[in-house]
């Protein structure tokens, strides 16, 4: 009995003891991917590369922390066991030492993109880097037959290394070189340089998937119509939706939210339009509203506005399955709290010029699905990109701005281009998901979508009431500026006339006297 009691106590004590990781003060950041860059500013020379890499990592379901190398301390570094270093600017020796020493001590998984690599790391990978003169050659993803002719500037390429080499560069005047390597344990990697627009982006994507052990995943491709606003041409949208529906092409719709006058007839028409798109194979994602400027008068304003809008949509049987926002929204605590957290899925759009930060954070939000985006035209123009997408481990939203389809011919040209490409698009409605958004529970079981348990009608066929045919503007008033110039000129002439008459009158008066 005593033995049993002792054993029971021992088990209880052991079970209540903190785990070694906890005892060692394991941080909440552990498991995150730290991306260290030399220049984090939005105007940085290669800020797009930073966006591109962070998007890829987040798309693999990882939480990302962004730090500038100048913000790095040994203590901070201890919180991460997977580190990516993007050498996209300048860093002094001391800062680099903190980074490399920390990685060495912690034996963290490490991937460096660009820049020189210390000897210790080169030795661990058996890496031999050699200078490559500026040359034109063929760069290809090693195992997938995806290749592009590229013009490389003077850089350092990989001549040999222990591990899997990727990004084979061949040119007539020299030996084969590689742009990327991952060592055998897939803990250490190096990429000679990045360029998010060339095939090198595919190499980064491939290397990252391997480094994160996510290469087995198969990404999907979604055709995405962007810039759908309450002011869009509804007739054109109806036509486009019908065309895509008839061709059996599913698509995502990024619709802008309405923030005022939600009970107006105009809102009803907009909702009817969105409902129609939903019934014609469209899946609705809500776009982030345009932010004019940041005030802190009401820190719940966005949440309130979105909540009212989403409620209004759901009343009309419209189920938004996700949200779409610029990359920086993922790194802002207020935007995360007020909008992103309310959705399961997110399409990341490229950052625009002005970033309207509210409460900047270094860490991103983990969501059910994060889908990076790319312009459809960019993909259609390059055959290697289309091939690469077939093997991609991350899903991608291929966007087309409906505002660009201004005329019937441009619409036709787009449709032609779409059919000619070898792309096959996936249907987001088949994703199984369930989430609560601003008090509404939205569920998709792969076939039917329901709001608060009530399946929505996805087979609506009647068109929303078309907008009144716009008559050509009468030019009776002309340009306001011209009119004002005329008024000013008349007053000026009267003014001069007044002076002349006054002067003559005055002179005559003296003459009489």
């Amino acid at each position, binding site marked *: 009995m005593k033995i049993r009691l002792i054993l029971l106590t021992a088990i209880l004590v052991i079970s209540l003891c903190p785990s070694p990781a906890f005892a060692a003060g394991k941080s909440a950041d552990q498991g995150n991917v730290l991306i260290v860059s030399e220049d984090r500013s939005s105007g940085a020379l290669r800020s797009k590369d930073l966006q591109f890499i962070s998007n890829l990592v987040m798309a693999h379901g990882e939480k990302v922390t962004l730090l500038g190398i100048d913000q790095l301390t040994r203590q901070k570094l201890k919180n991460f066991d997977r580190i990516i270093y993007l050498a996209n600017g300048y860093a002094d020796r001391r800062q680099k030492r903190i980074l490399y020493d920390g990685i060495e001590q912690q034996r963290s998984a490490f991937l460096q993109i660009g820049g020189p690599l210390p000897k210790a790391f080169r030795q661990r990978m058996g890496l031999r880097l050699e200078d490559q003169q500026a040359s034109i050659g063929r760069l290809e993803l090693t195992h997938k037959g995806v290749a592009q002719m590229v013009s490389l500037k003077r850089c350092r390429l990989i001549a040999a290394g222990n591990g899997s080499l990727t990004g084979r560069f061949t040119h007539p005047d020299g030996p084969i070189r590689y742009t990327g390597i991952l060592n055998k344990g897939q803990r250490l990697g190096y990429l000679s340089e990045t360029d998010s627009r060339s095939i090198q982006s595919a190499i980064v994507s491939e290397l990252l998937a391997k480094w994160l052990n996510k290469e087995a995943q198969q990404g999907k491709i979604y055709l995405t119509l962007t810039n759908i*606003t*309450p*002011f*869009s041409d509804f007739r054109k949208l109806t036509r486009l939706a019908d065309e895509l529906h008839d061709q059996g092409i599913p698509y995502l719709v990024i619709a*802008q*939210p*309405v*923030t*005022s*006058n939600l009970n*107006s*007839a*105009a*809102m009803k*028409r*907009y909702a009817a339009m969105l409902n129609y798109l939903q019934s014609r194979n469209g899946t609705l994602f809500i776009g982030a*509203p*345009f*932010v*004019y*400027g*940041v*005030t*802190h*008068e009401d820190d719940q*304003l*966005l949440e309130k*506005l979105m909540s009212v809008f989403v409620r209004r949509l759901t009343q009309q049987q419209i189920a938004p399955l996700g949200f779409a926002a610029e990359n920086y929204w993922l790194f802002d605590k207020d935007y995360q709290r007020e909008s992103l957290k309310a959705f399961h899925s997110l399409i990341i759009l490229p950052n625009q010029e002005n970033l309207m930060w509210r409460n900047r954070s270094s860490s991103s939000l983990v969501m059910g699905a994060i889908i990076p985006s790319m312009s459809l035209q960019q993909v259609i123009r390059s055959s290697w990109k289309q091939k690469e997408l077939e093997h991609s481990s991350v899903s991608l939203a291929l966007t087309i701005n409906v*505002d660009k389809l201004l005329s019937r011919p441009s619409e036709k040209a787009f449709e032609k281009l779409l059919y000619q490409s070898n792309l096959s698009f996936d249907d987001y409605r088949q994703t199984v998901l369930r989430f609560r958004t601003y008090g509404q529970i939205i569920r998709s079981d792969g076939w039917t979508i329901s709001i608060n348990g009530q399946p929505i009608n996805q087979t609506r066929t009647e068109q929303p009431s078309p*907008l*009144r045919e*716009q*008559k050509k*503007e*009468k030019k009776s*008033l002309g*340009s*306001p*500026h011209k*009119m*004002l*110039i005329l008024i*000013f000129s008349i*007053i*000026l002439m009267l*003014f001069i006339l*007044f*002076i002349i008459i*006054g002067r003559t009158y005055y002179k005559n008066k003296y003459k009489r006297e």
Partner: protein
Amino acid sequence: MTAIFKFKKIMTPSLLAAIGIGMVCVLTLFVEPIKGMADNGDFFRVAYSNGLYYLPHYDSNYFGYFVSQYGISKDFNENGSMIFTSQSLIIRLAIFINRWFYSHTIFDIRFQAGVYILLLMTGVYLLVEALTYKVRRIYGYILALLAVLIFGDSAYTEYFNSFYAESLMYVSIIFIVASWLLIYRNRYSQVFLTILYLVSSLFLITSKQQNAPIAVILALMGLMLLIFEKKHFFRYVVLTGSFILFCSGAAEFFLIPDQFAEINQFQAMTRGALLNADHSEQTLADFNINKQYALLRSNTYYQEYSSVGVHSQILQKNFYSKYGFIKISFYYASHLHQFDEMLNTAARDWFKVRPAELGNYERRANLPFGKRTAYFSLYHAFCDILMPHRFGFIFIWAAVMLGLYLPSFIHAFRFKEERRLLLRLPLILGLLLMEFMATIVAIVGDGDADLAKHLFLFPITFNCLFFILISDSLTGHLFHNHDLRQTDEKVQLPNVAQSHSEVGQ
């Protein structure tokens, strides 16, 4: 007795008013907790184009807290001039003084307030001098104290601690009225006062784009000065000056930066024509605009979140391109009930000089975000509470003022020896027209958005008229022109009744 005599000799009512104003302003703007005006986003254009930049954490103060310190840019200013405003001259002068006495890297806005305080003291000195010259001292002192109460009110002076153009408008209008009244009183050099009038008018017109239309009033008033002086040089100055005033108004209007024009155009529709429309979609149809834009009804240009960017291509193509201020004016002309409603909306804000959304204190004062001051603001409170807030008031006010000053004008018209005595009524008329124009321009130009600032010309001209009215009532010059009693002794003047009977014959 000697002390009192000495005091009365040195401390003239005008000096007392100037010192009083100075003290009140210093207490308001320089003594902790200092008061000023928070930025609503407009400072950027003026500050950056004059070589200033925001210090870190500036953004969190927008609307709520006033910021007193800015960085002075050392490098070449690549921002250039974003707007055409005479306010830049005052800012540059303040930066120059700041560099001399305080810092080459940090600009304290109180140096600018200091410049404005000196200008206000001078302006009030001249104004009180014009109204109390040769008036019984006791009345003079009463008027001096009244001047401090009216013109030293913090609702107006706290603009000095900001980059809003209202501060320059405020001192300019006081100089305009003061110089005009001094000409009328034949005090000081007439040429100097004429130049002062023209320069002050030029500053007022070019301080802000919305003042462009009053260039016509001020230029015509300038031409009135031709009636009392025959010297060639004087006439040349007046003619040239008036011409410049007119042209500056036109230039100010046409040099409005595109963004400003766009802001005004946007709000003229969303906060104007659409705001009180019974059927907003029909209103849009009148302008040949897609009726979906009814969703923009009541939106401001600065809306924090909106469906599309206010500068987006879709709005440029389908919204802004469809109308201008002329069309808006025609729209109001054909929808008078709506125009009347808008004018009454404006009238409700005539005396709301402090924008409701802007705070008056610095963050370090530890007061709530957006907290406004009530310090030395009795006159403003009096006007805001007691004055009528219907547009019809302007007609009654104009009728009363013109009615009161018409007899003295007729009298002066008959008394041909002193042409300058004709000048008082045109000043009253000019100020009344400015009040009228300020209200109309605010509504047609920008709807009901930001009315407290857009209508700023109304209360400041009203204050001048009110002060003139009180002064003339107190000193008995309401129906009689100044200086006539002395003149009566020298020249046998026909009295008004006699003149009328002569006309009858």
